[in-house]
């Protein structure tokens, strides 16, 4: 909060901008809430960074078990990635439409976000259960432990995101687009887009480096 005030105190050099930044008063609740949630997301990303480092250190330690090249299916990863990218896109459009009070379009795009997210999760669960069935579960080797910890944590985040999405839709349906409902929706959007950023890193480091030619 004090930083926000300081930032707007620095601003008067650009007169037109001061009013938008909040002028003399405190920043609007919407900005403060989004900022707080952004700090949480960054801490979440730092937690992922520790698991990424673990995976990078351990990905060669297969203990005689299956390697990344034998386990990963690049087509599956491509479909998963496209699902997540499009779900991020529809989530953004849904936010746009609720800001313009076009509720039917909001429900349509938010519904698509849910379907694409669920599709991603289904593919990931299918992949994991296939690996466990082949004897490549998390207890097989250090490589697989770190793989399941990293990718599984991302999958857990997607699961939580889908539950959150359902609750948000119910809230919009019950209470309408009130300011605090919109703020929660905005936080959900940030969460969902951040998951996409983490997936980009997972896709590149884990899958594409794992099955490179």
């Amino acid at each position, binding site marked *: 909060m004090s*930083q*926000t005030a300081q*930032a*707007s105190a620095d*601003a008067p050099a*650009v007169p037109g*901008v*001061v009013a*938008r*930044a909040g002028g003399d008063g405190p920043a*609007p609740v*919407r*900005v403060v809430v*989004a*900022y707080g949630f*952004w*700090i949480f997301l*960054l801490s979440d*990303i*730092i937690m992922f*960074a*520790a698991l*990424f*480092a*673990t995976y*990078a*250190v351990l990905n060669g330690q297969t203990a005689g078990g299956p390697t990344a090249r034998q386990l990963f299916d*690049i087509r599956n990863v*491509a479909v998963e*990635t*496209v699902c997540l*990218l*499009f779900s*991020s*896109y529809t989530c*953004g*459009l849904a*936010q*746009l439409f609720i*800001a*313009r*009070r076009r509720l039917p379009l909001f429900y349509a795009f938010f519904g698509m976000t849910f379907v694409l997210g669920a599709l991603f999760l289904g593919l990931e669960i299918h992949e994991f259960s296939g690996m466990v069935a082949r004897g490549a579960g998390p207890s097989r080797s250090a490589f697989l432990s770190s793989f399941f910890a990293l990718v599984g944590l991302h999958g857990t985040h997607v699961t939580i995101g889908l539950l959150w999405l359902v609750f948000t839709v119910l809230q919009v349906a019950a209470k309408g687009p009130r300011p605090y409902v*919109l703020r929660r929706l*905005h936080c959900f959007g*940030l969460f969902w*887009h*951040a998951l*996409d*950023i983490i997936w*980009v*890193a997972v*896709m*590149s*480091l884990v899958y*594409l*480096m794992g*099955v*490179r*030619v």
Partner: protein
Amino acid sequence: MSESESGDEDAGSVLAYTAGLGLALALTAASFIVSQTHLLWAPGLAAGLAVLAIAQMGVHLVFFLHIGSGPDNTNTVLALAFGVLIVTLVVSGSLWIMANLNGNMMPEAAMQEMQKS
């Protein structure tokens, strides 16, 4: 944006989201192509994939998360910079320390020799 009815919402525009999606898809496709062909010099593949991944993260930040250079964004960008610093320290520090430990490990033969005596 300006065309939205409630002026203070900054959810972006359809065009911006579509541009972001297009760029993200193009960068993803580039990553897949580069990893599945011999287009890049093999030892440089990791660096190439890292560059593409970082570019795509940038696209997501700008087009989807709306982290830009606007006046509302000063604190957000500062927090992001701090986050990036910590992530870099955690990842590169871990890799550096573990590579060092690995380099200082006793060779397997010498280890077995010690266990015998």
